[in-house]
Structure formats: C-alpha cells, structure tokens
C-alpha cells in the first residue's frame, strides 16, 4: 500500500497481507464465462414474451433484406443517370426513398419490440428474485450483509436488461446482413468481390487482438471501479479516524495508487477501442482503393466495370464494416450482462431456505387442553448446531393468561418467542399455538395469531399511519387513531404531525420511546389474540416510562400475553412467572410463590427491588424525578 521501500524491491514477493488484499478485491472479477448455461437459465423468463423477440428478429431480417436492396437501387439510379434516362432515374429515386423510409420504420419497431421483451422479462426476473428472498431462512440473513442482497434485485437485473436494451441481439440480424452482402457482391461480380475482400483476413486478426485486450481491460475496469468506490465510501464514513490518526497523507498515497490504476485501466480500454475503430476505417478505405485499382485494370479488358457497380460495391463495403465496429462494444455489454446473471443465479441456487413444509403433528393422539393458547413441549433448540440455547423446555399458557419469562441475558427467553412464530425450526420437541402444532399451520395462519412488540422497533419509511397499519393497502385512519388514543399516545403524536407525519428510513426521526409506543399502537390496531412483548433493556426517561406502562396495561387486556420482562412492574402484571436459567426452566409459579421459594427468582427480585429501594433513598436529594423510574427497573 503506502510502503515505499517495499514497492522498490521487485524481487521480493508482495507480503502475505498484500496478496490476501489483492485476492479479496479481485474476487469480483469475471471468471470463466459459462455463457451458454447462463443464457439457458435466462430463457424461462424470456419465454412468455417470446412473441416480441420473434417480431424483432423478423423485423431485423426484413431490414437486412432492405439493406441489401439499397445499394442495388443506388446503382440503378446511377446507371440511368449515365444512360440519360431521367424518368427511370426518378422512378428508382422514389423507390430508394421508399426503401429508406420503410427501413427506418422497421428499425423503430424492431428496437422497441426487443426492448419490450427485455423490460418485461426483467420485471419477471426481478419479481422472482424478490419472492425468492422472502423464502430465505433467517439464518441466511444473520450472516449476509443486506447491501449485497439488494444489488441482486436491482443493479444486477439491470445489467442483464442491457442485453436487450442496447441491441446486442441485433448482432444476429447483422450476421444475416453480412452473409447477404457477401453473397450479393459475389453474385454481381465475383472477381471484384474477391478483390474487395482481400483485406478481410486483416480485419479478423485485428478483431481477435482487440477482443482479447479489451476483455482484459474491461475486467480490470470493473474491479478497479468497485475498489475505487468502496474506498471512497469508507473514507467518507471513517473520516474521523483518518483525521484523528493524522493519516491523511498516507491515505492520499494509497488512494493515488487506486485512482491511477483506475485511470490507467480506462486508458487501456480507450486504446483498444480507438485501434479497432480506426483500423476498420482504414480497412474499408483499403477495400475501396483495391476496388478502384481492379476497376482500372479491367477497364481495358473484356468486361469493364461500370461506375454504377462501383457505387453499389462501395455502399456494400460501408454496410459491411458498420456492424464489425460495434462488435467490441456489444461484447462488453454481453459480458456485463452475463456477470450480472451469474450473481443472480448464484443467489437463486441458495439452499438455506425457510423450511415451511406442513408436517402432520408427530403425535396426533396427544390430548391437548382446549384452553391452551401456546405451548412448548420438550423443546430443544440452538442457533448453531451443538450449542443449545433451549434444553428440554416445557411450558404452556392458557387463553387469557399472562406469563412473564425472566432470567439472565442469554438464558433463552427471546428464543421462545422466535420459536412460537416458527421463525426457526426446533431440533426436537413440539411447539403448539392455539392447540395446533406450528408445523401444521401455514405461515400466515400462524402469524395472524400474534402481535409482537419487539426490543428494537423497526419502522418502515412512510407515515405514522402506514407504520401502525402495517401491510394494509387501505389503512383505517379512525382505527389507528383509536389505537393511539387507547394507549394514551394520541396527543403526543398529534403534536408531532399526526398520522400523516413522515417516518424516515428506519424511523431515525423518532426517539426510542416513541418507537416503542408506535409498536404498541401496532399491536392494538392488529388486534391479535396473543401478545408477545420483548422488553427493551435500554433505560428511557420517566415520562416515556409511564406512558409505556399504561400502553402495556391497555394492550394486555383480554389477550394471552407472553412478556420477556425486565421491569418489575411488567413482571408483576403477569399471572405466572417462568424463570429461565442457561436454557432450562428452573422455577415456575406466581410472584408470591416464587418469593417464598427463596430461589433464583427471589434473588433476582431482591437484587432488583432492594437495590432500587437503596437507589431511591440515595438519589432522593440529587434527582427526584429519576427515583420513580429507577424503582421499577433493572439496569443492564
């Protein structure tokens, strides 16, 4: 990187760190292109829109035909001029005009049909990718950065669509044209044609040379662009670190390497493109020159070449080289599209999906209490294999019952909620909701039983209303207002702009307390029979604290509730308390019962409550407003 002496020793291999870095940044490079296989996989998305592609290809064929006719008509016009036949000249002139107009019309139709096919196919592909991502397991999301997934559905699909939008497939029509031109020229005057095409092999050699070079240059540009932008992005994010350590100069040097590498890669690409363009011009001039020379040779011979034919052939030559010059550009777009497709299909090959097959309950004969709302039956579960988070856990709640789960961090409480929602599958044991095995319910059926108020409330960008009435196309305003009023937060939100107040991405313009209140409002709006509350551990100010308490008491009414509780007041609101410790249930009972036991719960309670009492008296003088808040809360 910025190591001066290191860079001047060519004999020394780059350090291991450098090698790893180079490998890391080059790993986006296009590897061997499995072109055909990728195109095959794209086919199912193009197939429904095949008729547009066919139309486009037909138009292309017609255009090629018209192109072939044009020089012939031109030649005829010249002939008539030479023979002083003005009326025939006019007629053929009109035909020429007609050919040109029709060609342009077809050109528009052809391009648009192709683009239509492309845009429709890509919309299908995009929808497919999105739907697929909905089925990925949560475990996959735990280990994959979101940014990478987003580009699959957006930028990568766009890269593939360029295949259609930029007319790469027109190359097929061009091929027909090229063949047609060769045939036409050969049939008009084969000797002249051969002379004209004598320089063709040079073109082929050139194209090959340029193709190799520009493929490499292109790949270089792609990786360097990614590296450049990633670097800049990091500088923008980490500027404080750079400044604090005074590394501006060193970073500038490092950046210079990347910046100049990017520039040089582009310059190489410029070189290849320039050479190809200029070479083709030169070759076509060469063809014309050799044509003229041959014509000169023939003029005193048996069959002199007419001027009209010269004009015709010149036109053909020009038409011949046009598509060749577009070759390298088209190849670049093709490569870009294919690498986008490669990444998309890599995602679609992912096997880590949510297992949501309906399974018949293992023991249908097990008698289930009709009053049972939720239950875990000898459940063992771990996020990673071999590291159990829940061990042989059995608990249940009747309808309308409110149970609190308590215990130290990591004891397994939040996991219970995830399992009830079947966000993960258990390793052994059975999870039941409303008497039915979760494995036997459909996703929607199961999740409609629940309202979840989580620790970290995720807000979607939109309005307060859309966040309360999540998922509904036509949110019910009065219902949302009633929900807010019920939890006593209506005034608070009305002061902040009401139901139509804007919510920024991730809800960054709302405080933690306000977000929690919105979560409660969601629960009330949703009106599901079971409430899961995963209490936030962060401390909030006493005002918000009180509001949240009130909101909870309202939401709780008439529902079955599962609290993962930290606040004493929440715990006391429960009918029954289940104490977790290291993944097992160690105690189970009412508040009074457990206190009497003198076990884990008693100790927990003592720590929290007694300490709160001490804190109360201690800070009475210093901060009276904080007292009330501390009294009902644990730290952490």
């Amino acid at each position, binding site marked *: 990187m910025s190591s001066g002496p290191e860079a001047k020793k060519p004999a020394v291999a780059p350090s291991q760190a450098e090698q790893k870095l180079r490998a890391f940044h080059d790993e986006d490079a296009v590897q061997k292109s499995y072109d055909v296989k990728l195109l095959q996989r794209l086919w199912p998305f193009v197939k429904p829109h095949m008729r547009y592609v066919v139309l486009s290809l037909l138009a292309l064929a017609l255009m090629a035909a018209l192109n072939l006719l044009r020089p012939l008509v031109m030649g005829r016009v010249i002939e008539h001029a030479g023979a002083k036949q003005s009326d025939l000249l006019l007629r053929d002139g009109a035909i020429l005009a007609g050919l040109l107009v029709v060609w342009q019309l077809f050109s528009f139709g052809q391009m648009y049909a192709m683009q239509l096919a492309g845009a429709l196919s890509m919309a299908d592909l995009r929808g497919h990718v999105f739907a697929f991502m*909905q089925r990925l397991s949560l475990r996959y999301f735990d*280990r994959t950065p979101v940014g990478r997934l987003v580009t699959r559905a957006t930028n990568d699909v766009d890269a593939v669509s360029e295949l259609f939008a930029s007319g790469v497939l027109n190359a097929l029509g061009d091929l027909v044209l090229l063949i047609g031109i060769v045939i036409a020229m050969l049939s008009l005057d084969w000797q002249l044609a051969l002379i004209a095409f004598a320089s063709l092999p040079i073109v082929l050699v050139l194209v090959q040379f340029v193709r190799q070079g520009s493929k490499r240059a292109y790949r270089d540009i792609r990786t360097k662009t990614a590296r450049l932008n990633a670097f800049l992005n990091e500088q*923008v994010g980490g500027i404080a670190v750079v400044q604090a350590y005074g590394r501006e100069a060193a970073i500038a040097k490092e950046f210079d390497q990347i910046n100049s590498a*990017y520039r040089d890669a582009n310059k190489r690409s*410029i070189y290849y493109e320039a050479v190809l363009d200029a070479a083709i011009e030169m070759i076509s001039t060469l063809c014309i020159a050799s044509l003229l020379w041959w014509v000169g040779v023939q003029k005193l011979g048996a069959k002199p070449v007419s001027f009209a034919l010269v004009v015709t052939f010149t036109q053909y030559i020009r038409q011949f080289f046009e598509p060749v010059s577009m070759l390298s550009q088209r190849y670049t777009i093709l490569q870009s599209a294919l690498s986008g497709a490669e990444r998309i299909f890599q995602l679609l090959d992912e096997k880590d999906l949510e297992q949501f097959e309906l399974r018949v309950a293992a023991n249908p004969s097990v008698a289930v209490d009709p009053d049972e709302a939720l239950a875990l039956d000898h459940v063992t579960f771990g996020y990673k294999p071999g590291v159990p988070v829940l061990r042989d856990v059995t608990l249940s709640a009747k309808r309308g019952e409110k149970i609190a789960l308590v215990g*130290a961090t990591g004891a397994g409480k939040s996991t219970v909620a995830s399992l009830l929602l079947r966000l993960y599958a258990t390793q052994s044991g059975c999870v039941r909701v409303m008497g039915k095995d979760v494995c036997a319910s459909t996703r929607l059926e199961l999740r409609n039983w629940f309202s979840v108020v989580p620790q970290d409330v995720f807000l979607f960008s939109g309005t307060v209303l859309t966040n309360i009435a999540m998922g509904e196309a036509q949110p019910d305003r009065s219902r949302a207002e009633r929900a807010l009023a019920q939890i006593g937060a209506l005034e608070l939100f009305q002061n902040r702009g009401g139901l139509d107040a804007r919510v920024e991405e991730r809800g960054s313009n709302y405080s933690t307390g306000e977000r929690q209140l919105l979560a409660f409002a969601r629960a009330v709006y949703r009106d599901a029979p079971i409430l899961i509350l995963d209490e936030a551990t962060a401390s909030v100010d006493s005002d918000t604290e009180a509001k949240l308490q009130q909101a909870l008491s309202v939401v709780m009414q008439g529902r079955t509730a599962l609290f993962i509780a930290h606040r004493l007041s929440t715990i006391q609101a429960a009918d029954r308390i289940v104490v977790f410790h290291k993944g097992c249930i160690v105690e189970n009972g009412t508040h009074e019962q457990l206190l009497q036991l003198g076990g*884990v719960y008693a100790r927990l309670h003592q720590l929290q409550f007694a300490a709160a009492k001490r804190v109360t008296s201690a800070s009475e003088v210093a901060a009276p407003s904080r007292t009330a808040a501390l009294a009902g809360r644990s730290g952490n």
Partner: protein
Amino acid sequence: MTNTSQQSSSAPASQPARPPSRLSHYLRAHLSKYLLGALMLGTFQLAMNRIDWLSKQAIDGIFHSAEGVTASAMRPALWMLALAVVAFITRVASRLFMFNAGRDVEYTLRAELLARLHQVGMAFYRTLSAGEIMSRATNDLTQIRLLAGFGVMNVINVLFALGSALQIMVSISGRLTLVSLATLPLLMVITRGFSSRLFQRTQKNQESLGQLTECVQSNLAGVRVVRSFGLEESEQARFATINRQYLAASLGLARLRGAMFPITGAISAAGMLLFFGYGASLLLKGPENGGLSEGSFFAFSLALARMTWPMIAMGFVVSIVQRGRVSFGRMLQILDAKPEIVDGLLPAPKQIHGELQVRGLSFAYGNRSVLSDVSFTVPAGGSVAIVGRTGAGKSTLAQLLARLLPTPRGAVLIDGFDVCDLPLTTVRTAIGYAQQDAFLFSTTVSRNIGFSLDDPDSPESMQKIRRAAQEAQVLTEIEGLPEQMDTIVGERGVQLSGGQRQRLALGRSLLWQPPILVLDDPLSAVDAKTEAAILDSIEKQAAKRSVLLITHRVAAAARCQRIVVLDRGRVVEEGTHEELLAQRGIYAAFAEEQKMASELEELGRLDIVPVQSAAGGAS
C-alpha cells in the same frame, strides 16, 4: 454552512491553497494533450480530404481518360493506401490524446475531492450527506470527464470535419452542397432535443430505481418484522407496484431510445436522398453541361458521408457540455468548502508532556447547546474519567479535544498552549482519540490495528500490533479467525461482533502511544471480565501517559484518579470515586445500578439445578 461555535481560529497564512473555481483551469493543465490531439485531428481530416480527391481522380481517370492503368488507377490507389495508414495513426493518436486528457482531468479532480474531504472532515456532513458526496464522486465526475474528453474532441472534430468535407463539396458544386445540407440544421436541433429528453428520462429512471432499491432494502433490513407479522403478501404487493412503475419508466426510456436513431437516421437519409436525386440529375447533365463527372459525384458522396456522423454527434455534444458544467458546479460545493479547522501559528513544541486543561468549554450544534462551561484538568501522566448518560455530550467533548470539530479559542490547552494555536498535526499526534463507533476499514486486521504505522508489514510492526492486540484483549480471538491477522474485516469483509470491533479499535489507539489518550466509551459492548482485563492494560498505559476515559461504566471510572460527571452538557459532580460515592448523587446512583446489573450477570452464570415446579431452591 457555518456553525455557531464561538471564535473559531481565523485563517492563518499557512492555509492550504484552494482549487480554482473554473473548469477551464483543469482543462488548461492538459493543454499540450489537447493541442496535440487537435493537430492529429487536423491531419486526419486532411488525409481524408486527400483520399476523397484521389478517388475522384481515380474514377475520372478510369471512366473518362484513355490513360493506362498505372496513371489512372494504380497511382491514386497506392496514394490512398498510404493516406489510409496516416489516417489510421492520426485517428488513434487523436483519440488517445483527447480521451486520455479527459481521464486525467477526472483523476485530478477525484484526488482533490478526497484531499478536500480530509481537510474539512466531519464538519462537512452538516451540509452534504454521505450519499450526496458519493454522487458527486461518481455521477458528476463522469459527466465532467465526458465533457473533458469526448466533448472537447467532438467539438474540434466537427470543426475540422466540416472544414475538410466542405472544401471538397463546395469545390465540386456549390448548389449540390446547399441541397445536400438542407436537412442539417433540422438534424442538429432534433439530436439536441433528443439528448436532453433522454437525459431527463434517464433521471426519472434513476429515481424509479431508487424507489425500487429502497423498497427492497427496507424489506430485507426489516425481515424479522415482515416474518413475525406475516407481512409477506403485502410486501409482495408493494414490490409488484413499484416494479410495474419501474417497468413503465424503462419502457418510456426505451421508446425514446428506439425513436432516436430512426428519426435522426431518417433525416440524414433524407439528406442523402436529396444529394442522390440532385446529384444524379447533375450526372445526367454531364460535366460539359455544368453537371458532374462520375469522379466528382463519387468524391462528393464520400465527403458527405464523412460529415454526417459529426453532425449528428453535435447535438449530443452540446448536451454533454451543458451537463458537464452543471456537474462541475455541484463538484465545486465540495472543492470550494473552506476548512474551519486550520493550523495554528505557533511552532510545534519539542515535546508534549501530556497536561490537558479544559476551561469553560461550550459548544452547540445550531441552536442546540451540547456543552456548557465544562472545565477540568488532566495532569501529565494522570487519569480522569468523564461519566454521564447517553446524550450528555461526552463524545462531542472528545472530538473537540482532538480538534475534529471546531474548538473555540481558549477552551482547550495542552501543556498550557491553546490547541487552536498549535499546528494540527501536533494536536492530533498529541491526542490519541479512539472513537465510540469503532470504525474499521475493509482491510486486514493487522492493517486496521496498525493503521498509524507507515510500514505495517515489517516484523517490528507485527510485533507492535500483536502487543497492542494483546493489551486490548482481542489477540486470542484474532487467532481464531480464518486468516488470523490477515483476515479482512470491515464492511466488505468478515462481520465481527460489536465487542470485537471495539477491542480492535482500542488496540489501534493503544498501538499509537500518544502522550494523551482519549478513549470514548471503548468498553460498552464488552462483558465484565474482559472489561477488567482491558482496564488493567489501560492502567499500565496510564503509567506512561495521560488518560481521559469517557465511559458510563463505574467500574472503569473507579480506576481513574479523578472523575468528572456530566449531565446534559454540564459538569455536575467532580471528585475521586470514594468522594463521589459518599456524595450520593448521580454518580452514586450509577454505581448502584451497575452493581445490580453485574450481580444479575453473575447470577446468570451460576450453575443451578433446574426444577420445574415451585419446589427446591438455589444455592
């Protein structure tokens, strides 16, 4: 863009030179390239001009004279060959010169952008968001590059092409020239119109894509909410709507792109038709009657064809120039930004002893006061803890000390010198600041920890890095990574836990060994045991340097010689650990809370015999 900090230091003489605000300056830096490119273009067009004349000569020679092959065809053909080679070389050379100049301008601007960012620093983000900065560095820079390369080249090329082609056309027949070029103005107007419409539609397309991206982003980031609430269907519907919108935008663009070439093609074809029609009638007349010879006709057609593409390009080029200038204007927002934090006038003192004094420091973001009249002293070699709840202003304080934010005059002194009077490098080297947010770069672990080192790969450096990692209690975990020290972390690399990141960042600052160490909440995501070990290391460091530890952990604060308690930007309590406990104020309240929390944690780690019902107990 100005903030309301009082009395920032005025710009002294040693301020870095500001980049000139004119685009022409950047272009002029590569004047030689542009001139050479222009020369090449001129030569190229001249060669093409000669080729056209030679073809006339050849054709006329073949069809109208009785000369032999050599004179009529061979010689012109050979000359054409030679000129074709010349044309090839000059054409490639002109492209290389001009387009490369464009890339050079881009390179320079990008480097200046970064340099400016480095100078202005965090104060920048009050005017431009990170996304907007990146957009200037990518989209806007591309437009500028197009102007500087493609734009300039085409302007010059058009002029030369016009010159060289018109020369032939007018010499052959003025009237034919007029007829053939009749459609030209229309062509230019139309391509210009298309180009701007295309740009607008592309913008709309981009916006639509932005909405699509946002939809996917929020769906994936909120995957838990979506799954827990069973929102999959509604999310699907939402996506389908936006997908359809994007489809419509794409098709709008497609229609425009699809119409562009046929329409411009039709207009230029009309021009060619006019030429063909009138030209053929002139052919019919023959040169004797004021018409054309075959050679003239042929040469004219070549020249006309050569002129067509540059004329079509003209319309696009005008738009490119326009857009390039607009983009440069946006770029100036960054390039013209004045750094508020500049070097002081005093020379760098030979040695920093490490005494840090804060006197009546106040700071505000706009109208919101963050710090009010904060005062305390860290003696050389001493340790002070700043304690307070979130939002008390602790991080702002730390940033002001290192002059990462505009520090007011007379508020912060190192060894008795006002930091605003010292050179920036001195201040930054004197104060080792570890940020709360533990930012890691996408590079190897060793390079992250050894960020301050010039030669992170040398054996001595590796030793230092390992030692620092050990002190930060993260070495064992590094060894457990797939590539150990060479593992790539950061946003694009292996995802580390919050605690691991914090400890890496801590290692980074410990490695540096500055005279004054300012640690901003380096232990928030770390458990008690690891915390104790890290504090041991810091204590060892404290023996050699002054330490300012910003924390809300009482256990950490207790290790410092003195504790300052901040509440809502004000100092409310001050003293040693014991003194503050005895005061039974905010600090004491913290202590109780955290004691309880650690006892809870302890409890969680005990081994208890599990029982299911209300019977049996714990130890």
